[in-house]
């Protein structure tokens, strides 16, 4: 089971990193989603992998238990990454509608003078 979980985390992470490096909006969103899945599984495994155990300390002898804290952490992480993905989609949509480009990197150097030199992006 350890092997399956570990390779799942590895595959999800590498796929996520690959997609993020594509630098186009849709692959990047998918890549960050995959990365957040990977980190959720990883956090879940951080408290040792056990099956069929209750998430509480048992008062009857030395029965084992599964660590409840990572489950709480994963829950928080899921909620946050869900919200962040929604924000990311909205920002991406806004950027795409404003600039007709879905590239993540700033193609034209933001340090260069504005075209025409009379710009006025903030003047409106």
């Amino acid at each position: 089971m350890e092997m399956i979980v570990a390779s799942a985390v590895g595959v999800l992470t590498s796929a996520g990193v690959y997609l993020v490096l594509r630098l186009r909006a849709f692959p990047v969103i998918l890549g960050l989603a995959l990365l957040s899945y990977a980190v959720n599984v990883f956090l879940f495994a951080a408290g040792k992998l056990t099956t069929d155990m209750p998430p509480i300390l048992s008062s009857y002898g030395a029965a084992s238990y599964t660590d409840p804290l990572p489950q709480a952490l994963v829950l928080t992480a899921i909620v946050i990454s869900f919200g962040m993905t929604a924000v990311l989609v909205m920002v991406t949509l806004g950027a795409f509608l404003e600039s007709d480009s879905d590239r993540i990197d700033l193609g034209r150097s933001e340090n260069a003078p504005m075209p025409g030199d009379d710009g006025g992006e903030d003047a409106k």
Partner: protein
Amino acid sequence: MSHWIIAPVILPALLAPIIGFVMRHDIRLARVFSLAGTLAVLTIALGLVVQAAGGDTEVYRLGDWPAPFGIVLVLDRLSALMVLLTAVLALIVLTHATATGWDARGRHFHALFQFQLMGICGAFLTGDIFNLFVFFEILLIASYGLMIHGGGRDRMRAGLQYVVINLAGSTLFLFALGVVYATTGTLNIADLAQKVPQIPLEEAALVRLAMMLLLVVFAVKAAVFPVQFWLPGAYSNAPAPVAALFAIMTKVGAYSIIRVHTTVFGPGAEATEGLAGDWLFPAAVVTVAIGAAGVLGARRLRPLIAFSVLGSMGTLMLAVAAFVPAALTAGLYYLVHSTFAAAALFLVADLVMAQRGGNDTLATRPAIAQNGLMAALFFAAAVAMAGMPPLSGFLGKLLVLDALRASGVIGWAWAAILVGSLVTIVGFARAGSALFWKSTALAAPGDGPDAPAPRPAGPLQVAPVVVTVGLLGALAVFAGPLAGYLEATSGQIFDRAGYVGAVLSTRGGS
């Protein structure tokens, strides 16, 4: 146990949704409440500094659960200082945004601003590393909204880049937390500070990995090489008051490195001691170099300021990377100074841009109406940022240089700071002469085809910049008392046993 410790988090958290829902159609009402709320946070922060100055580490147990099990907020000198710094900066920035009408160029500025304030104060006060992650996310999600406030093509694209890099950073943060929990079984900072030194050197591989991951995560926030590339694009495209507020955001990363990598992984922890400094120091040297080169090469004003912020973060990290109390004292002084210097530069740049028709290209243009005033303010802020006397930048850099004299890194550190300062001075002098000096030789405005003359900046619009420059002067004048407080602060940060004892002790619950 004082309930005031949680007030800087609760107050903006309650105010933000009220402003967002109830006052969304009335910008004046939102302004009044936002300013009043920030003023209240400032008052509370002053009280907290007075409370913390005594030297006690105060603990606030949420739900009154004892420390390693529940989440705690911890108030010590460093936290109190950072909260006060945030509150002062927030009030200045908010006044500027209100006076210049930036807050009316988009929706929900004040609600997002309050959420941002909540996240920053929470990150400074929390004593739990997972809670630190949560507050990071709060301040980030508010900063995404503020970053793209007002819209526009370049700003949206820069904002998208900023969101993506920070989401990747957050994922890395979670991976680091998973490793920390797997190796130590706790996420409470005090409990970590107790358990990490017990890890023997032979079993240290995983905890060293966790420490380096955390270092990378905080370096993303603090914009240290090699993860500094997002800063110039984000800061130079953000709305001016937001860019000024972001001056404290990089300091959140610096604060996290100081807190976690000193108290938990710092001196005394056999497994990880010295590792962070070995990596952070060269990175800081390169950061200073990139910042200085960027200042010299920038062709527009706001990227120039953004690169000077980068250089100042490098200088700060040079001091932090030594991981000795004397250097940390100097670093904390420079941290306070560089926050205000960066804010002053962004605010004055906004006033100059407003008068130049929204254009910040460093090219000779007809003189603006208030050339003398703007030039004086820009000159003062640039003097502070570049580190020339008489303002606090000079003292800050001098303290850092003096503190790094003792260690074996004097060559690289002195070369980086001195050469970097010289290049920064040249860059600012070039920018200032192009913007203000040469321009007076040209014809008066009015010859442009599309030129309704911009209104001169009113007293209320200039006041925040003047106050910030005044604060920089005050930092220099009162450097003695401040350095005394900061010396006690860094002593407290390096006092691992004191921190652990104060947080984990069972006494003193309410």
